[in-house]
């Protein structure tokens, strides 16, 4: 018994613990001073536009890099094949990392890695709503000097897709898994309803067709709220002569926008020919639950494989106002700013390889995403999946997305919430849109405007 330690006396314990606590608290208070540097102002661009460009003329590429991807459109296998070819050609080893299952998850990891200042990849998949935020925070590097060094033929990329990543006369990413929404229709249902074998030219025309489409549970399925409702609804807004925004001027609570969203609500509640999907509307469509839906071209191959009926695809229906009604979407590839020039150059080489005509054809064939190069030979691709031609053709009539949707942090989520209240709770449209306008304006004022140069 005598060999065992006794409990300490009360006074010793108290003093020891107080001393330990004080020392610990001091040390922890110092430790807590890590993280971002704190300034008194409201911020400013963290370097995306201000960062000095590296002179790559004497830089040699790194021999080992990481590629962070969410494998858009189920592209894991085709990505792996392309990476193997890249390594054979260049000798650069690529760690193929599943950094998330969607754009939001990969963004979460990328941003966390920025905060930790560690473990950044050389190439990252970035979606249409994330790249600008990365630019604002100085997380991605301008690709121009790398494009020049590698002699990447930007003019051969499809113009509208390349332009999506340009800001302040610099190129911040290059296209990768790029898509547009497509109108999917069940050919069997259309035939049974006596409708022509084509997508409706306008929503007005579809309103006339919808009552005849009784073979499924519902004629038209809106994409689920988690599936970028703000993206596809731009089609309706643009067709009715309005938008989420005009550059940085919000138009969410404009009378025309409220009128357009009231029409959307009526299609679900008054007319009753539409519903909102509970999960991916492409899956719901492929299961035959609905006769038509709008989903990404990235879902095309999956739908064709899953559906037990003939699938038709067409351009998005137009509205009463002339002009493009189809937004672009999908993801590009970017290079982090906080890695070495050697890593950046090797990353840019991978981006160049993934964007080659033959690579983009392979990628499109496996996913349904659009070939991003003008010179890509799509004949074999079209032989296998002729529906992709529709997506390529539609690209000529696309429109750049509204700033409010793609450039405001959290705007997609706020739009989904507002649309949800309108469609699933039959809420007051004017109130929902006015509230949304207030929230988006607040986001712009606090989070974006101070950082715009």
């Amino acid at each position, binding site marked *: 018994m005598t060999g065992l330690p006794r409990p*300490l006396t009360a006074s010793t314990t108290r003093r020891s613990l107080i001393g*330990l606590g004080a020392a610990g608290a001091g040390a922890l208070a110092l430790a807590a001073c890590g993280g*971002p540097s704190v300034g008194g102002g409201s911020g400013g661009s963290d370097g995306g536009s201000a960062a000095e460009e590296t002179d790559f003329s004497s830089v040699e590429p790194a021999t080992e890099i990481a590629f962070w991807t969410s494998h858009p459109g189920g592209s894991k296998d085709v990505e792996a094949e392309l990476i193997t070819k890249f390594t054979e050609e260049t000798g650069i080893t690529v760690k193929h990392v599943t950094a998330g299952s969607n754009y939001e998850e990969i963004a979460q990891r990328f941003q966390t890695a920025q905060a930790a200042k560690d473990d950044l990849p050389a190439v990252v998949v970035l979606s249409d709503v994330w790249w600008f935020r990365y630019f604002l*925070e100085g997380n991605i590097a301008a690709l121009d000097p790398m494009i020049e060094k590698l002699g990447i033929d930007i003019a051969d990329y499809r113009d509208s897709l390349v332009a999506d990543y340009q800001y302040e006369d610099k190129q911040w990413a290059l296209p990768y898994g790029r898509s547009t929404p497509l109108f999917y229709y069940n050919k069997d249902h259309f035939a049974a309803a006596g409708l022509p074998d084509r997508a409706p030219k306008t929503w007005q025309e579809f309103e006339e067709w919808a009552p005849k489409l009784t073979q499924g549970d519902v004629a038209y399925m809106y994409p*689920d709220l988690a599936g970028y409702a703000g993206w596809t609804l731009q089609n309706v807004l643009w067709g009715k002569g309005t938008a989420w925004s005009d550059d940085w001027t919000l138009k969410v609570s404009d009378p025309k926008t409220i009128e357009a969203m009231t029409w959307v609500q009526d299609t679900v509640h008054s007319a009753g020919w539409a519903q909102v999907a509970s999960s991916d509307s492409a899956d719901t469509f492929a299961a035959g639950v609905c006769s038509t839906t709008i989903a990404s071209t990235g879902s095309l191959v999956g739908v064709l494989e899953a559906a037990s009926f003939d699938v038709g695809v067409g351009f998005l229906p137009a509205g009463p106002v002339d002009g493009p009604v189809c937004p672009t979407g999908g993801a590009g590839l970017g290079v982090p700013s906080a890695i070495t020039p050697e890593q950046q150059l090797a990353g840019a080489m991978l981006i160049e390889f993934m964007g080659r005509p033959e690579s983009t054809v392979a990628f499109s064939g496996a996913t349904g995403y659009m070939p991003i190069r003008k010179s890509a030979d799509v004949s074999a691709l079209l032989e296998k999946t002729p529906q992709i031609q529709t997506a390529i053709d539609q690209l000529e009539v696309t429109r750049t997305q509204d700033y409010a949707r793609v450039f405001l942090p959290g705007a997609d989520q706020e739009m*989904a919430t507002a649309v*949800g209240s309108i469609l699933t709770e039959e809420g007051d449209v004017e109130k929902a849109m006015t509230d949304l306008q207030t929230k988006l304006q607040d986001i712009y004022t606090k989070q974006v405007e101070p950082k715009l140069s």
Partner: protein
Amino acid sequence: MSSTTTGQGAPPRRRRLSGRGRRDAIWFLALALPNIVLIALFTYRPLLTNVYYSTLDWTLGSASATFIGLGNYVEFFTSTAGHESIRITVVFTLVTVGGSMVLGLLLALALNARIPGTAIARSAAFAPYVLSGVGVGLVWLFIFDPDFGVLAWFLRQLGLSSPEWMNDPTMALVMVMVVYIWKNLGYCAIVYLGGLQSLPQDVLQAAALDGAGPLRRFWSISLPLLSPTTFFLLITTMLSSLQAFDILRIMTPTGRGTNALIFESYLQAFGGYSRAGYSAAISVVLFLMLIVITVVQVRFVEKKVHYA
């Protein structure tokens, strides 16, 4: 007057540690210091760092931030979204804690019966508790799916249509609460079962001899004697419910109607808003809430506990 009065102005005498005392102190430090260092590094340091971040206007991924003091807290407590998140947290916690404990007790009473197959039944009842919340959420999504789900099929057989479990915020909250109670029911049942099996049988038999029926014996004897178990479960299930995340995140990724505090904290940082400072403030609010609830329970609720 104090019995330890010293001369005015004279410093108090410090009691020196004896050789034995010093040895004990060294033993204490040798044994406790590694754990204290680890806890300080991986628990208290992040905790304090998080409190510090909660005073910043900081966009996740940004290298710079602005100090705004209590601005994030003011925004949270004055915004409709903040109030809604607190309401959802309270509803979710009350329903899941109450549901898990009441149903867990009923299940424990059934499992306490001396009939064949109870060992298998006990294992089956406890199994959901040890399953991954992500897996549970995915499976229940298939069950609740209004188009393809098993539940929708049963409702169709009855001539009913399925509620919009995922799209309607109210039904989404009901859905995640049902799944959460199902997953945690077994835990409460097994803990209650242990309590039931340790009840003094002589007291119960005496009551039976005095003519007390099963309901009377349960209400007047078993339930009061189970109060230590109930108290333990009240604390653990409440802390668990307040920190519920996996099922909510998997079944309702947008958080419409289900954004309890911890989920709202996640959504604000990682769900598209990238508001790391605001998210940290919500985490601190949740932390303080957990502390207050635990202290209140220990200080006041425990007084009602009957220890045998």
